[in-house]
């Protein structure tokens, strides 16, 4: 056995790790490159994901999980990871919590070429070898595993022989040993041209380093014979002969080196997102009218990367110009991970953001965007979900509807609009159980909400988003019908409460060991920022929940519209952007 441990000189560059036959729909393929196990899967949109083969939760192989076409679901506790971004979208054991953005599977760049899936685990340097011979017609041969080092395999490939495809199609008595071959050694591949009886074939054999003692030979024939099977059989047989020859030449049977990935610690990146900091430059790839006064914007990262994972209910901040930062819900369904889709309504009462976006931003424009934040996470542990939208409030709910639909869960949609031409996402909604409530008066709306709610049951939950009066009415009715607070989830786009800022009080920051004064006219968030206490914020209106802090002592004076009644009464969480202390002091877990 060779003494060379290739781990000391890990192969760099791009290698094939699977064939196009391995990454068929709804299957997860298990591969390995240089000791690192990989889960390779193709989503329904055609994108091929190459990930480290382990769930971030308990280390179970993702390759035994389920490819639902949009997401890979771990077999053990059903953590869901999104196509492209590899971000975790849902943790069933914590249905009320949005998974942290740092929970992202280790993914590697993937390229499809010559019918093979290529990746590199040593950064993105270099590229897939450009083999001119294979630019024309080609036939992917059967890949064969070999218990020998890649170096040994490459050496032996120099003596590999086969017959030209043209002879095999017509049937021949010739043997591969009769062929004249010329071998040309590339970096990690060998090109072989075989001549016999006036015919010629060229094949390229790529050598995939599986681990220091095992390799995979992945051959591609530079020809497209009409009758493939005899050609494939011949190559499988001849390559099988070569494999046996190589394995006999290797003195000891190859020891199977344990997969290496498990030794490597997962290093979670430090949270690079401060408060209201835009970290993504995104280009408007498409702008389209989807209803009266509603435009759909599709945003793609300017650098061509995959944007951070968004879960149903999440929103992004759009930095439209200095001082004008606005939140928009992401409407994407599962698997739509290459872009963010937002819908913007031109609102005559707009504070400026929506009108600016709707009127001034066009395809090709670049917008600075913050990564998604989810203050409205969708619980998927309740059998039936009712989604109630008022006007443009449909946006987070359409994302939820698609996620519920993809998971095969029961849900219904109620969509309140002033006029039929204001209905967005009509085509998508047509495939769901959806009722439109058009042109109702406030009193009729309240009565309809009462009907929709009905008697609470433990098997049903409600998510609602819309104008504040409608949500206020919904909450009041739910309370009157004895719905538990944690079964009715609402998201306000705006906070129409009068916000008092005239009190002054002190905040004790337990973790930072700081005592800060919040003077009249300032918010807790202002004071925290001024003292460089890291805290995330988004809308700063008490609507999105981004800036929530845990209260360890003192009574908050809530002025937000984000917390539900139970949270409000519990007094253990406060939104630092608008709320204050009802007494002289609050102790925060910051």
């Amino acid at each position, binding site marked *: 056995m060779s003494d060379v441990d290739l781990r000391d000189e890990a192969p760099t560059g791009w290698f094939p790790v699977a064939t196009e*036959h*391995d990454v*068929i729909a*709804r*299957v997860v*393929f*298990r*591969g*390995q490159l240089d000791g690192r196990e990989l889960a390779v899967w193709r989503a329904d949109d055609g994108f091929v994901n190459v990930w480290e083969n382990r769930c971030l939760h308990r280390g179970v192989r993702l390759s*035994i999980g*389920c*490819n*639902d076409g949009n*997401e890979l*679901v771990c*077999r053990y506790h059903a953590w869901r990871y999104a196509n492209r971004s590899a971000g975790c979208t849902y943790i069933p054991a914590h249905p009320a919590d949005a998974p942290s953005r740092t929970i992202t599977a280790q993914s590697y760049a993937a390229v499809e070429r010559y019918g093979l899936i290529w990746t590199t685990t040593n950064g993105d340097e270099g590229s897939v070898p450009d083999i001119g011979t294979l630019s024309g017609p080609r036939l992917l041969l*059967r890949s064969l*595993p070999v218990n020998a080092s890649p170096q040994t395999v490459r050496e032996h490939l120099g003596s590999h022989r086969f017959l030209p495809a043209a002879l095999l199609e017509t049937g021949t008595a010739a043997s591969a040993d009769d062929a004249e071959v010329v071998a040309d050694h590339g970096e990690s591949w060998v090109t072989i041209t075989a001549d016999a009886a006036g015919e010629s074939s060229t094949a390229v054999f790529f050598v995939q380093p599986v681990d220091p003692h095992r390799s*995979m030979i992945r051959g591609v024939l530079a020809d497209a014979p009409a009758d*493939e*099977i005899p050609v*494939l*059989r011949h190559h*499988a047989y001849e390559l*099988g002969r070569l494999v046996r020859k190589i394995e006999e030449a290797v003195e000891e*049977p190859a020891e*199977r080196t344990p997969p290496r990935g498990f030794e490597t610690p997962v290093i979670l990146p430090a949270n690079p997102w401060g408060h209201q900091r835009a970290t993504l430059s995104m280009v408007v790839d498409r702008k389209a009218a989807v209803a009266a006064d509603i435009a759909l914007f599709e945003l793609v990262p300017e650098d061509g990367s995959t944007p951070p994972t968004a879960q149903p209910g999440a929103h992004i901040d759009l930095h439209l110009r200095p001082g004008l930062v606005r939140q928009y819900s992401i409407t994407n369904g599962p698997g739509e991970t290459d872009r963010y889709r937002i819908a913007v309504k031109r609102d005559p009462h707009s504070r400026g953001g929506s009108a600016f976006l709707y009127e001034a931003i066009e395809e090709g424009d670049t917008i600075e965007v913050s990564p998604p934040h989810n203050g409205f996470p969708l619980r998927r542990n309740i059998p039936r979900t009712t989604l109630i939208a008022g006007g443009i409030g449909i946006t987070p709910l359409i994302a939820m509807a698609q996620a519920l639909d*993809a*998971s095969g869960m029961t849900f219904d949609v109620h969509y309140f609009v002033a006029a039929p031409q204001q209905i967005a996402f009509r085509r998508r909604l047509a495939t769901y159980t959806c009722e439109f409530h058009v042109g109702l008066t406030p009193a009729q709306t309240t009565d309809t909400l009462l009907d929709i709610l009905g008697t609470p049951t433990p098997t049903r939950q409600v998510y609602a988003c819309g104008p504040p009066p409608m949500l206020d009415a919904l909450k009041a009715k739910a309370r009157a019908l004895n719905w538990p607070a944690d079964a009715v989830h609402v998201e306000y786009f705006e906070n129409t409460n009068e916000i008092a800022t005239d009190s002054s009080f002190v905040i004790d920051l337990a973790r930072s060991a700081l005592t800060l004064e919040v003077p009249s006219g300032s918010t807790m968030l202002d004071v925290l920022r001024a003292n460089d206490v890291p805290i995330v914020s988004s809308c700063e209106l008490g609507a999105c929940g981004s800036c929530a802090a845990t209260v360890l002592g003192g009574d908050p004076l809530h002025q937000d519209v984000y917390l539900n009644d139970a949270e409000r009464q519990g007094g253990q969480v406060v939104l630092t952007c608008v709320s204050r202390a009802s007494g002289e002091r609050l102790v925060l877990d910051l």
Partner: protein
Amino acid sequence: MKLYDFVLSANCYKVRLLLGFLGVSYDSEVIDFHPGKEHKGEAFRLINPLGHIPVLDDDGYVLRDAHAILVYLASRYDPGRSWYPVTDPERLGSVAQWMAFADATASTASATRLHVNLGYDFDVDERRAAAHELFRVADEHLWFGERTGNDWFVPGPLPTLADVAVFPDVVLAEEGGIDLMDYPSLVRWTGRVKQIPGFSVMPGVFPFERA
């Protein structure tokens, strides 16, 4: 119908699988194979002098040997004659060929599992190497099946006893330390078997799951 059965036995699992595919109900008579070695006891020798499970008792007709039981059950309870295609000599021959192949996996792959799980004394490295040789052949066979639109061990639209006979030793092979990574076609085929209506699981075998 009574099956002398042990839940962890790959050979008993074959029979349970086919009973499920055929929709035939039966009672399990649990034999304490491990740790009691009840199949080697005097009482069980009366039922099978060879001291092996499974044994089938169909209303007084007593039959031993998993593959014999498969042939009997398919011949008696599959009116469509698809599992054991007696009307097609070539396919029938192929079924017998792959059932014999499954005898070979039983003495190799299955033996490694008995070694790892139950402490049986085998030269486990030798058996693993032999199992890998078999799996290479099976994987190539199925890879060509995929190229020609054949889902099953014996070409044809429906699975046969060949698939039932080979399935347990393949799907349980990793318990014996036989890594299936090199056999992607074999792994994909296990996924297809799991989708046959009536499929049943055993400890160590996941059902097919659509999210």
